[in-house]
C-alpha cells in the first residue's frame, strides 16, 4: 500500500479535481504556489548564525534547507539583543557599522523554495508547513490550474473561488508567523537589556 503523505494528498486531490491535467504541470504549479505562499506569509523562517569580525560590515549567509532567502526578519547579537541590519541583496547581511570585535550573531530570515526541485519534481518545503497548510496549498494549485485557458479543467469561476481561499490562507499564515504560532501571541519580544 502506498504511503500517504501530506504532499501526496495534495497531488491526489489535484488530479481528481482537475480531470485531464498532467502531473508535471501540477507539480510545476505547486512550486509557484509554494513560492507565493512562503514569500507573502514569511511562514518559513530559519535562524542562521554567523560570525562578525572587526572591520567588516557585509556577511554572506545561506540557509541549510534547499531554499532561497526572501527577507531578513531581524538580527540579534550574541546577547540576543536586536541589532540593526539590512539585506540589500538576498543572502548578504549588511551591518550599519563595523563591529569592534569578533562575535556570534544570528540572522532570522524568511525563506522560499528554490530550484532544483526534489527528485520527484515537487518543491522542497518543510513537512510541517505542508501538513498545516495543505488545504491552502491545494486551493492555490486548483485556482492557478483552473485559471489556465483552453484546458479540460479550465473554469474562471472556480479559479476565483479557489484563489480567494488561497489568499485567505496566506493572510492566516502571515498572522500565525508573526505570533510564532502562539494563540493570541505577539511578534515582538521585550528587549533583554530592558529587563
Amino acid at each position, binding site marked *: 500500500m502506498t504511503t500517504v503523505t501530506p504532499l501526496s494528498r495534495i497531488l491526489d486531490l489535484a488530479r481528481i479535481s482537475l*480531470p*485531464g491535467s*498532467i*502531473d*508535471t*504541470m501540477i507539480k*510545476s504549479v505547486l512550486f509557484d504556489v509554494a513560492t507565493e505562499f512562503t514569500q507573502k506569509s514569511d511562514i518559513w523562517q530559519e535562524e542562521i548564525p554567523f560570525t562578525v569580525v572587526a572591520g567588516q560590515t557585509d556577511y554572506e549567509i545561506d540557509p541549510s534547507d534547499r531554499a532561497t532567502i526572501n527577507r531578513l526578519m531581524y538580527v540579534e547579537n550574541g546577547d540576543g539583543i536586536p541589532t540593526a541590519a539590512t539585506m540589500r541583496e538576498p543572502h548578504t547581511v549588511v551591518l550599519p557599522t563595523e563591529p569592534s570585535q569578533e562575535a556570534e550573531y544570528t540572522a532570522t530570515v524568511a525563506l522560499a523554495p528554490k530550484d532544483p526541485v526534489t527528485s520527484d519534481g515537487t518543491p522542497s518545503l518543510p513537512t510541517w508547513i505542508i501538513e498545516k497548510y495543505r488545504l491552502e496549498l491545494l486551493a492555490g494549485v486548483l485556482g492557478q490550474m483552473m485559471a*489556465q485557458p*483552453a*484546458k*479540460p*479543467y479550465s473554469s474562471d469561476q472556480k479559479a476565483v473561488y479557489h484563489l480567494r481561499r488561497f489568499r485567505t490562507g496566506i493572510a492566516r499564515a502571515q498572522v500565525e508567523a508573526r505570533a510564532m504560532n502562539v494563540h493570541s501571541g505577539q511578534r515582538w519580544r521585550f528587549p533583554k537589556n530592558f529587563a
Partner: protein
Amino acid sequence: MAILATAASYVEQARTLLQDTVAPYRYPDADLVMGLSMAMEEARRTRPDLFLATSFVVPVYTAADSTAVAIDAQYRLAFLYFVVGMAQLRDEEDTQDARAAALISLFRTQLTTGQA
C-alpha cells in the same frame, strides 16, 4: 503492458479502425506515422503542458517501430483518432471527409475540453 505506447502500436490500432489490416495496405506505414507526428505538433499548439516533461521538444516519428510515444495515458486515444482522421482526409469520398473531420475535431475536443 501499456497500450498505445509505441509508434508501431498506433499504426496497428489505426489500421484496425481504418479496416486496412491486410497487405498490400491502402494507407502506407509512412503516412500513418506522419499522421502521428502531425498530431504531436497540433497537440503542442493546443496543449503545450503535454510537453512540459520533455522541455517542449516535439517528437518526430519516422517509422512504425518500437519508438516510445511519451504521451500521458489519458490522451493516447485522442492521438489515435487524429492519425485515423488524417489518413482518411486523403480520400475523396464525401463520407470519408466527414468522418475525417469528425475524428480530427474529436482529437482537439478531447485535448481542450476533456469531453468524449
